[in-house]
């Protein structure tokens, strides 16, 4: 397990079937699962910041995964705090579009719940 302190290596949370490691992070269920097992909410609360490192050979991360993974941090601390204090090391993966979409979904959900 490489993750320690407030650095989360998504490598630690890849699905492994035999010798094959999954190259994707998809789905809200998975996002929720990794949020829970990585303890990202508690780490953020404790350290005030978090760094997420994406494995170099990852093929895809979808917004549904990111939406659940970052949901509590964005809703509890706000988008500005999230952008300031959550660092994502993409390692070559173009995460900008799915991340932005994931954040938009969190904000839309939050708005709908606030009504």
């Amino acid at each position, binding site marked *: 397990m490489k993750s320690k302190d407030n650095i989360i290596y998504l490598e630690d949370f890849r699905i492994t079937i035999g010798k*094959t490691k999954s*190259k994707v992070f998809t*789905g809200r269920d998975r996002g929720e699962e990794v949020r829970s097992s990585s303890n990202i909410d508690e780490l953020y609360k404790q350290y005030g910041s978090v760094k997420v490192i994406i494995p170099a050979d990852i*093929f*895809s991360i979808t917004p*549904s995964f990111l939406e659940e993974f970052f949901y509590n941090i964005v809703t509890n601390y706000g988008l500005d705090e999230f952008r300031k204090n959550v660092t994502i090391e993409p390692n070559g993966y*173009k995460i900008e*579009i799915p991340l932005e979409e994931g954040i938009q979904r969190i904000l839309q959900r939050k708005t709908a719940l606030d009504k």
Partner: protein
Amino acid sequence: MCNICYDCGALITMVGCISGPCLATVLDWFCKIATVVIAAFNIIYAVKLDLFKNKKDSEKEERARRMNLLKTIVFDNTLSQLYVFFEKLKDALERLRSSNVDKKEVETELQSLFYVFGDSFTIYLKAADCSLGQKLGDLTDQLRDNLVEKIGDEGINLYVEHVFNDSIKAPYDEYRRQVIALLFGYRGAS
């Protein structure tokens, strides 16, 4: 056990004799009370039926209003985006038939296509009817997740015709069918 006296018409009961005129009065009162009760019941029933019908009519009108507004405000301006998305997605996926394709490039393009679709169509649907928009969002997410998983799996040779058809074309076709069925099935209430 009751009997009637054939001489005076009185009702003879176990406790005594009820005289003819008295019996007529009792029956008369019973008849009047029954008439009032039946009339009251009819009024209550008529009022409830009217209220029920009014409520149903209002609900029907509201659904019709919502469908009209959905058409005018959302579909008239954005429905073309749905079909543009279908076509662009199909074009991007067709590239996977080639064994030389850069899958990463295709993945990046897919992410962009799905993002634009969400921003140009799904969001308006959610604004008009949250539940309908959410169902569309869920269907789209399922397709996206399914596609990237298949594309990212190095054990799946998408350049093989039947593999492509099973892994890519079939989910894409099913998605289109489900989306059209969802929109067609909308009845103004979700």
